[in-house]
């Protein structure tokens, strides 16, 4: 009888893990609570598309072009024109108080300069303390201005707007040029949430056995290493799928993220990703001496996962060394898989290379876990 796994013993391990999981209220709450909180924080509060941002106009020129632009802003979702005729000092004051997000300065003789082809500049002051809100608004503003010009500038001035915009928009603010939307962020969160909970909770689960002394009992029984490892991992696969379910439902119902591709494909690819992370967690738990160390190691893994994977910053925009680290991490590939399947309807062929890279990591992490697992207390 040399089978590495015996079903009775494996079931004993799995059953025990489930009971312990159920009794450990805090961990249990964490497994459901962390995904919900992150979803709401990232998906809703932080990166919701800004709407109806308060805007003021310092109008040095009240010609038809300016009026058309203000009207355009008024009807757009992005802006709410609070006051279309501010003085420069009022505008500065209100911006400072946070009552206005934007102030649009229209220079005197703006329309005339446009018609003469002088490319005058519109100045926009933006409250950059909320960069993501600002960036979306600004791109909308340029577009609204362009449309207004197209409408108003007919007749002799018409050729002007065929080549380039007849005026430029100068922005006085610092902001993040990346415009994240819920479409991008919610699928990405699936990778982040799974990484965080899987690595941390498995690392803790194994270290706990050592810390509480139960490992000594476990090792004195005929349980095999693989039975212990698989017994630890199986319950967390179930947890992972519950989390994936929660995220998908929230993505659909709350954030209205489309789902273009195949659900089974996503669930299959997720299994590879989840196992890769569980392997990392188990490996950490064989190194960590106590639970605190296990948590620290989990965070050590979590930080690059969130920063260098393309979740926070666009992957291609990162320096080479960061991309090199990022492409080792399974989450980087998983993000591409999830976004590909959910948003672009990617099929098996398109996601296969990314899944292969995750599988490679999985083999590595599980090998490390099995190799590091000790049969004795030494």
């Amino acid at each position, binding site marked *: 009888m040399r089978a590495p796994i015996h079903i009775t013993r494996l079931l004993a391990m799995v059953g025990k893990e489930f009971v312990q999981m159920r009794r450990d209220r805090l961990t249990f709450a964490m497994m459901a609570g962390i995904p919900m909180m992150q979803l709401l924080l990232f998906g809703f509060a932080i990166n919701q598309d800004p709407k109806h941002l308060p805007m003021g106009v310092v109008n040095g020129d009240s010609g038809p072009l300016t009026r058309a632009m203000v009207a355009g802003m008024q009807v757009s979702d992005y802006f709410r024109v609070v006051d279309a005729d501010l003085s420069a000092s009022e505008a500065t004051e209100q911006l400072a108080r946070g009552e206005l997000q934007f102030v649009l300065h229209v220079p005197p003789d703006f329309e005339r300069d446009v018609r003469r082809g002088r490319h005058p500049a519109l100045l926009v002051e933006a409250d950059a303390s909320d960069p993501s809100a600002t960036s979306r608004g600004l791109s909308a503003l340029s577009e609204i201005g362009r449309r207004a010009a197209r409408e108003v500038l007919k007749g002799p001035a018409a050729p002007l707007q065929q080549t380039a915009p007849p005026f430029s928009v100068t922005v006085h603010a610092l902001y993040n040029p990346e415009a994240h939307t819920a479409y991008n962020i919610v699928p990405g969160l699936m990778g982040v949430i799974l990484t965080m909970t899987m690595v941390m909770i498995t690392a803790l689960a194994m270290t706990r056995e050592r810390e509480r002394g139960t490992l000594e*009992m476990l*090792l*004195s*029984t005929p349980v095999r290493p693989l039975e212990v490892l698989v017994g630890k991992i199986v319950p967390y696969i179930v947890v992972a799928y519950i989390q994936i379910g929660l995220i998908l439902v929230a993505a659909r119902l709350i954030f209205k993220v489309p789902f273009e591709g195949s659900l089974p494909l996503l669930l299959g690819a997720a299994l590879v990703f989840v196992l890769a992370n569980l392997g990392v967690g188990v490996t950490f738990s064989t190194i960590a001496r106590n639970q605190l160390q296990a948590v620290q190691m989990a965070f050590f893994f979590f930080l690059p996962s969130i920063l260098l994977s393309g979740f926070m910053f666009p992957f291609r925009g990162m320096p080479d060394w960061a991309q090199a680290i990022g492409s080792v991490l399974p989450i980087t590939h998983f993000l591409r898989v999830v976004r590909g399947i959910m948003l672009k309807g990617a099929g098996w062929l398109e996601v296969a290379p990314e899944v292969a890279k995750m599988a490679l990591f999985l083999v590595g992490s599980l090998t490390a876990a099995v190799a590091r697992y000790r*049969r*004795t*207390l*030494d």
Partner: protein
Amino acid sequence: MKEDGDAAIEVRGLTKRFGDKTVVDDVSLRVPRGSVFGFLGPNGSGKTTCLRMICGLLEPTAGDGTCLGFDILSQRREIKREVGYMTQKFSLYEDLTVAENLAFVARVYEMPDARHLLQQTLERFDLAGRQRQLAGSLSGGWKQRLSLAACMLHQPRLLLLDEPTAGVDPKARRDFWEEIHQLAAEGLTVLVTTHYMDEAERCTHLAYLAYGKLLVQGDPTSLVQQSGLTTFNVTARESADLAVRLRALPGVDLVAAFGKGLHVCGRDAVALRAALDAVAHEGEVEVRPGRTSLEDVFIYLMGQTPDNFANPSSASIEKGGAS
């Protein structure tokens, strides 16, 4: 399966080093089948480490041997199946109930008819009334009882018990020892560590470990004889500094409180006798021949061996000098 004579455990030259600290040093043990073998020694003398090596939880640095006829180096899995090991520290799951813990152990050992076995064990160890209680919420003595139940559940042929009665009340302790002897009579071998002398006296065999070295082994009476100690009971009305005075006398190797009086022991019977006679002559002190107890022997042994673990640097100097 090769049975090694009638020894349940037979190890030779068992040694364990942690870093440069030799925790178990060249220990050779023979535990006969069906014996109740007491393993004694001061704190930190390496008893737990020895047990762990015997049941395959620690890899010996050197030495070999057999346990139930299986090689302790290469047949750990077979050993684990036949041995019940009760750890010194409670090592069952505190967040599982009594019944869940036992059921887990039964399934891990792949016991047939686990349900029936569980019920039987609960009743035998008086745990039925507490079966739904979380193990972590049991009192210390009940935890010990649960641990014992868990390590006997799979009907092992050898029990390794590491201080099984620490913190257990006197009645439970007596019941426990009756149980142990009952099991031994049925052919089970028990290796048990303890710090209690009354328990040591109930063992059929004893071994005494001090600072990693096995000093003596044998049955309790032969240990007393081997020690070569002669003992006198000394009582006095004014006994405040008596012990100190006696200890300074020639021929006195050990002075230990015993009941209301003192046990004075020495290896050189003649010198001891002479010294005590002189003291008795001064009056107010009564000297009568006494019986050397196991406790006297062990306290004497403890005094004979320097604590070479207490100061790691001195230990390594010693070792350096020896090699």
